């Protein structure tokens, strides 16, 4: 059986008060772990490779300034790719959420921020994934069909886009649960 990744990343020992509280939501605990397994121990990798999964996860964690989680997902990456991702994450640093609402009353709340584009040296398929991940992390309300078209144009399948979207969205959940549990444990 694999370790519970959220407990591991949050530094919760088995039997600790917060680990015990997490046991009360047993299905949530088990299915958050099953989500991790579905994304990172998947056997069907035709639509998104293992390297792509770990590279995007490392990028997303780094954009959240979480060095522990970024290092965890970077472990299987070859050094060159790990360095590329670290460099790209530094280039992509921003604060969110920002973005535009559908034109109307909410437009008064529109805010802008940096739009990231991967360096020319990054392979097109990975570059498209990093561009999309950056949008999802920081300015999700700017999402449009054009963002999905850019992925299709770079060779992503519709199923691959679903997996990529789930992966970035899951990380956005996991990183916040870990941050919240660490904060609560120390408060």
């Amino acid at each position, binding site marked *: 059986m694999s370790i519970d990744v959220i407990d591991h990343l949050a530094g919760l020992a088995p039997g600790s008060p917060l680990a015990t509280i997490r046991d*009360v939501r047993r299905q949530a605990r088990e299915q958050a772990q099953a989500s991790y397994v579905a994304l990172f121990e998947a056997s069907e990798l035709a639509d998104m490779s293992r390297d792509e999964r770990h590279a995007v996860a490392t990028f997303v964690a780094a954009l959240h300034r979480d060095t522990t989680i970024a290092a965890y997902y970077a472990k299987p990456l070859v050094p060159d790719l790990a360095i590329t991702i670290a460099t790209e994450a530094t280039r992509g640093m921003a604060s969110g959420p920002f973005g535009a*609402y559908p*034109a109307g009353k909410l437009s008064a709340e529109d805010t802008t921020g940096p739009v990231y584009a991967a360096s020319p040296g990054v392979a097109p398929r990975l570059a498209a994934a990093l561009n999309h991940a950056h949008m999802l992390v920081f300015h*999700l309300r700017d999402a449009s069909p054009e963002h999905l078209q850019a992925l299709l144009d770079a060779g992503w399948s519709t199923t691959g886009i679903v997996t990529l*979207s789930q992966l970035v969205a899951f990380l956005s959940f996991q990183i*916040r649960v870990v941050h919240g549990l660490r*904060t609560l444990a120390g408060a």
Partner: protein
Amino acid sequence: MTEHTIPQSGHAVPTVFTQAQLDWLPWLEPFPEAALTERHWAGLVDASRAKSPYFMLLVRDPDILQARTKTDKDIFYNPEAGLPRAERELAAAAASRLNGCIYCASVHARFATHFSKRGDDVQRLLDDGLTADLGPRWNAITSASAALSATPSSFGAAHVAALRAQGLDDAAIVDVINGAAFFNWANRLMLSLGEPELPTT
């Protein structure tokens, strides 16, 4: 197979946060119902979700969909201990309001109203955003949910202290964390794979 996006046009776009029932239109082709295998049905969890374009798009990767849905259900529906359901829904609505997901906010604002009977306060959260004054306990919950949702997260010891001061024990605070964090998952799917529509009738 040629894969393509589905640009949606001509529909009524919601331009304010609302508790009204909205529809959702996909920007990518949902999986064809006739091709669903046993694994896809397991991914849908509830067979009725085969009628939803959102779940039929996500079911293209059935394993993560199944785990996502079961995580969601336990965080929000498990009645044992922790935060009352109304306030778990409030955390979801607050995260969705901050991120700007009009669809997600509509669903969970409705649930928050249903379980709390405080529809006017919920509407103030939608209309005025995270600065709305909803009373000390709800303010502590919406502030914590918004702080956790920011990137990077700004949820800190002061948020924990404010929640404890309003009588939340650690199990209830874990529910706030899980409820808000989960909507950072859901908002990103809802906002990026399609768009909301005001029903025509």
